[in-house]
Structure formats: C-alpha cells, structure tokens
C-alpha cells in the first residue's frame, strides 16, 4: 500500500505574542511546528502501513525550515519525505493544493492520501479537499476512524450532529481529526538517524502548475480580549464561594 501524508509546518499559535502597542502579531519570533492534526494523519499512515504493509511518504510545501517537520516525520517512521521548497513567497491554499497534487501525481500512484482536517494556524480546512479534486479521487473529511477492506476504505466522519459511516473506493484522500489516534513520540536514535537522511527537494517555482494565488493577505491584526484577572485563592472554601458570589452579584450576572 502506497500512502502519502501532507504535512504543514505551522505557526505554534500558543506561543504567538502581539506587539503591545500596534497589536501586530510577532510572527517572526514565534516558533514553528508540525501542525498538530497532521501528526495524527502521519500516525494513522504508519498504523495503516503496520497493518497492511507498504510505504509512507511525507510531503510538505514550505520555506527552508519546513525540512524540520519532514525530518520529524522520518523520525516517527515515514519512509520518504519530499520537500516542495517555496521559493516564491506568500502563496494561498490554491497554489499549495496545485503543488501537492502535482507531486502526488508525479510520485504516485498512492492508494491513500492523508491530511489533517485543518491546519492549526490558518484553519481553512480546504487543502485536502482541493487536492482530492485535482487528482479526481474521492475525499472523506473529518474521519475519526479508518479501516481498509479490500479495495475500499471505510471511515467514520465526525459531524456536528451525527457520526456518518462512509465508504469509498481507493485511491481516496482522507482528512482526519485529532481523536483518530494518539501519535507516537519518535525515539532518540530515530531522530539522530533522520537528521542524516537526505530529503528530496523540488522548487515550487519549477512546477508546471498554476502558481498564481487567488487570495492575498492585506493585513493581520491581533485581537485583545481584556479580562479582569481577579484571583480568588488561598481562602477556605466557604470564603472563596462567598467572594465569588458577591462579585458575580455585583456584576449583575447572577440574581440575588
């Protein structure tokens, strides 16, 4: 079974700070990491390989540093990694999808392609679906479990008000949720070995696809939610309860 996983190097948003004066997000000093849900996608790929055999290829579009997440993918157990080096500058999801689809065609055929349900910084939930469409294959979104039976994939889709069990003929692209598994931690020796492994790199500008973005970011502004930050601590429970209730009554959010 040939399996591909699309992995994004995303901004670690939990560490993102704003400039206190301008509210400009301080993106350049914020660390990057493997988008959380893509780690689940990779874990699922490894589990499918462990059960059905085959090979796992990790692919990422990004700047030079995106190699780091591919090294991490190899350390977790991916067999191969392909880096599409973004040598163009800011591109939108349309261009990223075009590039991923092109590489998947070039290096394929893959029976299963896995993505995260959405990336943790941009959260648009579109790249996986777009890639499937470009490849002309079925797409199953929001999968919280996957099983393979013969030529078919069966997955449970986690929707707002229901769980849908769906099936599709392979090749299929599947986007997964966080709940599908708990990703393994790479072992030290694997990390060391991955550091030495060469990673195949292609330049984005060299791909014969539509490289013109359809969307352009004009600005990004931080939002400040001001909370009062009143601490109620080191009080006997009785007193702490009174303290809270008095405050909530004063705020007018609970009735006397």
């Amino acid at each position, binding site marked *: 079974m040939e399996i591909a996983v699309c992995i994004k190097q995303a901004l670690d948003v939990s560490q993102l700070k704003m400039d206190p004066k301008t509210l400009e997000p301080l993106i350049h000093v914020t660390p990057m990491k493997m988008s959380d849900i893509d780690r689940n996608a990779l874990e699922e790929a490894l589990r499918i390989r462990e059960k059905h055999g085959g090979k796992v290829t990790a692919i990422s579009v990004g700047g030079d540093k995106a190699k780091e997440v591919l090294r991490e993918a190899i350390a977790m157990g991916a067999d191969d990694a392909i880096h599409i080096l973004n040598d163009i500058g800011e591109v939108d999801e349309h261009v990223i999808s075009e590039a991923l689809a092109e590489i998947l065609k070039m290096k394929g055929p893959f029976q299963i392609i896995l993505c995260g349900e959405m990336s943790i910084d941009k959260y648009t939930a579109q790249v996986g679906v777009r890639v499937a469409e470009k490849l002309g294959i079925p797409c*199953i979104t929001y999968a919280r479990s996957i099983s393979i039976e013969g030529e078919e994939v069966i997955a449970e889709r986690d929707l707002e008000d229901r769980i849908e069990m769906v099936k599709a003929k392979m090749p299929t692209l599947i986007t997964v949720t966080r709940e599908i598994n708990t990703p393994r931690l790479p072992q030290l020796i694997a990390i060391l070995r991955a550091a030495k492994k060469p990673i195949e790199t292609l330049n984005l500008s060299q791909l014969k696809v539509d490289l013109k973005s359809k969307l352009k970011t*004009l600005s990004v502004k931080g939002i400040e939610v001001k909370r009062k930050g009143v601490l109620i601590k080191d009080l006997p429970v009785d007193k702490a309860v009174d303290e809270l209730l008095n405050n909530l009554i004063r705020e007018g959010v609970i009735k006397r």
Partner: protein
Amino acid sequence: MHVTIFSENPEALIEISTKLRETLPSNLKIYGITKVEVRSPGDYGIDKLHIIKDLRNIYEAEAIIEKVAKESYSKLIILESNKNNREIAARIAAKLNAGYIADCIDLKLDADGSIIASRMIYASKAIETIKSISDVTVMTMPRRITEPKAQWKVGCEIVYEDPPKVEAKTTIIDVKRKELSAIPLEAAEVIVSVGRGFKRKEDCKMAEELAKILGGVTACSRPIAADLKWFNEWIGLSGHKVSPKLYIAIGISGAIQHLAGIQGAKIVVAINKDAEAPMIKSADYGVVADLYEFIPKLIEKLKSTSTK
C-alpha cells in the same frame, strides 16, 4: 454583483442575505438555494430562491450550487459554514480554480470592485484581512454574523427543483445521531463548562445541577466530548463559539483553542486547582480551588440564598 448563497437552513440563508444587503452596493442580485420554504424571502433581499426539497447528499448540493452560480453569473458563492459545507466550498473552489475564504465574518468591496473579507486566524488571536483576486470567490460564513432584517422588499421569484442527478464518490452506510443541547449553546445566557478536571462522568451531575440553578446549560472542552464522549458538543475553535453573560469553566486548563470559543462571553469564571492554568489567567474571576470541594459548596450556598 450577483451572489449565490446556500444553506439547508432558512435562518442562515436570511442572515447571509441581510449581511450582503448591509455591506455590498445596491446593484446586488441574490440567488438563494435551500431545502425548505422561507417566509417572505424578498423582504430579506433574496431575488430568486431555488427550493430543492429532497436534496440527499453533499454531491447534489454541490451540483445545484454550481449550476445556479453559473447560470446567474455569480461572482461570489457563499455557503453557511459547517463541516459538510466547508467540504463543498473547497471542492467548488478547486473546480473553478477560485479563492475560498473559510469562515468569513465580514466583507466589503474594494474601490476596484474586488472583494475584501476578514476571518479569524491563529486560534482567534488575530483577524486576517484578505483581498480576493479571483474571478469567482467562494466563501463560508458562520451563523449570527448579523441579525436578519426584513427590510428590503425585493420581489422574490421562487422555483422548486428536483435535485440534480450526480454520481456520489463516497457512500454513506450508516448514520448515528448525536443528542444535542435543547437550546443552542450560542443562545445560552449562562454556560457551565466541564473539563478534564472531572474524573468521572457521574461527577458532571454537579455541573448540571449548577447550570440548572443558574438557569443555564452545560457544555465542555473538546476532549470531554470528542474523546470521552460524556457530552456531544464542545466549546472552542473547532466547536461552538459562544457569548453568554456568564461562562464558568470548571477543571478546564484554558488551551488557546478553548479560549477561542469564549471571546464573546461577558464574564468568565475559572475554577481550577492550578493557579498557573491559563484558564485562571484568562478569566475575570479565577478561583484556585479543588472543584470537588468548591462546586458542592457553591451549589449549597446558591440553593440556600435562593430559598431565603
């Protein structure tokens, strides 16, 4: 400008059409697509409404949206934001080589006539403003971005259609319904929210009792619903975004993805035994206490004051 909008839910449809009438120029023509009757759609600014009563799946929805958008020369296609519609929107965008702006919360036209939209990014820590340089732009829009207003009185033509015949690439083999909150969480005035600080499902009864006394509802963090399945609906970036008068987070650590769902809350209370938990720091009132001691006492006090 011509716009095609789709939602199975008429409430969402008239919210989106209201938003468009409020923000875009008057030479607007709105083509709506939905599943059920809409009361006086023209009053909400919808010029033509396609009603497809037995729309069966996402592939049929996609086909009808594409057809209406094409026939009406729509430059903008907007779907109500939910999981299935986000998939449909992305696929339509891929087919048209178009830009897709997910979860757009505001929009306007630039001087040159192109669409400018904003959306939350970085776990709702920031707002991104995007300009579309796409021939056609696809969008999804969440609920409650505006109040529906019946004030436009355009004459609306209504057509009933059968769903288009299309081949589905995936087949649904089983559906399990989730049990949802009686009132939508978005409309709740008081929410008592449960996190992994609760050790057992039975312990959540405390939270339910507290919610009842306060005239509110219960909700939870994502792992309580998605992993443990004690509840069905969670609050946060990937769940409900709520704006109650009072939000009480009990045994919730306050991960950024959780906080992203409660930005609209008036007063936030955190109860956590860890003074360093981000939830305590992001609250109006942060109570550092063991929930197993604090909540029963809180309930007891509230009961005794309300019967006084």
